[in-house]
């Protein structure tokens, strides 16, 4: 009987040990990596099907533009964060037959494309796209375009706040720009140093070549960014563009921080008081002689184009000049 008790204790103890280990890994590691977005957004950064021009269910700003492009229709591409804007431009002035979407992706011959920032700059460099709407390119993307013989022109069409996000339960609501640089430089490592809980700061970064990563590198002004692997068990901070966080993803588990005491709402972006803004650029090759490119640019910067930008949730350039 005593032997049986010991044997059962060993078996049950071992099983419980495995279960406890699995539970600990799940709660502390696995759960952190579960996407709360749809599979489409998970793979493409955005639910493309919500923003298809000329689709009756598209969530795009309607336009009463009186013109439609004819002839050589420019292929337009861009970043996830501005897809609602350039899809609305396409719907406003492109002929409907120039857009072909198969329910999952745009057809290769479609004048409307979505390949996100890295894909868009690559397409522009390789001559597959005529105009892209993105943040500034990374040094590598600009160099690749130059290697391909492109002379890129950058036309600002909107302003957008670059925002810093934390978990909604993080008690910190405001950081100074210098504190953020200190966090990403690895000089400030614990939230208690900036008024938060005694937890390591997990300073997460985006993929190289993404618009937000390139913008963040500019914000750091050449200071290298560091991430302590052990900070994984702390509380994270990240960055993105305001509308991507507040208008597209709308994940209630995160909140945007004020920077230098100013919250990134449209009013503070428009009046210039929010200190970290970036331009949404229309980028094209100076040598591209497609006559519709200047017409499209004029429309983007027109009163109607800027109204589309404002009603899409971004800040027009005209209000900040």
């Amino acid at each position, binding site marked *: 009987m005593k032997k049986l008790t010991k044997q059962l204790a060993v078996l049950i103890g071992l099983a419980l040990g*495995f279960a406890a280990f699995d539970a600990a890994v799940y709660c502390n590691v696995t759960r952190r990596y579960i996407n709360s977005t749809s599979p489409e957004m998970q793979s493409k950064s955005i639910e493309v099907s919500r923003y298809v021009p000329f689709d009756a269910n598209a969530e795009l700003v309607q336009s009463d533009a009186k013109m439609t492009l004819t002839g050589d229709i420019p292929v337009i591409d861009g970043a996830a964060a501005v897809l609602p804007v350039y899809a609305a431009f396409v719907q406003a002035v492109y002929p409907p037959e120039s857009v072909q979407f198969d329910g999952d992706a745009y057809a290769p011959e479609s004048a409307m494309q979505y390949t996100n920032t890295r894909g868009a700059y690559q397409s522009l460099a390789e001559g597959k796209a005529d105009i892209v709407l993105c943040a500034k390119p990374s040094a590598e993307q600009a160099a690749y375009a130059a290697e391909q013989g492109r002379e890129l022109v950058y036309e600002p069409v909107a302003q957008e706040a670059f925002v810093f996000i934390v978990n909604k339960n993080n008690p910190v609501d405001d950081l100074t720009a210098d504190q953020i640089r200190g966090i990403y430089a690895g000089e400030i490592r614990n939230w208690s140093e900036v008024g938060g809980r005694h937890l390591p700061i997990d300073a997460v970064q985006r993929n190289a070549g993404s618009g937000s990563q390139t913008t963040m590198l500019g914000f750091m002004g050449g200071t290298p960014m560091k991430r302590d692997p052990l900070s994984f068990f702390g509380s994270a901070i990240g960055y993105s563009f305001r509308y991507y966080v507040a208008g597209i993803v709308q994940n209630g588990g995160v909140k945007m921080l004020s920077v230098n005491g100013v919250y990134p709402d449209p009013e503070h972006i428009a009046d210039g008081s929010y200190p970290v803004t970036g331009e949404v650029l229309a980028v094209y090759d100076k040598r591209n002689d497609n006559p519709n490119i200047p017409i499209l640019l004029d429309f983007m910067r027109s009163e109607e184009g800027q109204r589309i930008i404002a009603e899409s949730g971004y800040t027009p350039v005209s209000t900040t000049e």
Partner: protein
Amino acid sequence: MKDKTFDRLLTAVLIIGSISVIALLVYTELLRRDVSIISYIANGR
């Protein structure tokens, strides 16, 4: 319980437990590759 039976049960628990650990680690790595920065922050603390 006979020793042979105990050994079989012990082996079974070890195999099943090891498989569960490996499966969880593989699943975690697959999630890690695709997680968005916003979901990652939202799931944390």
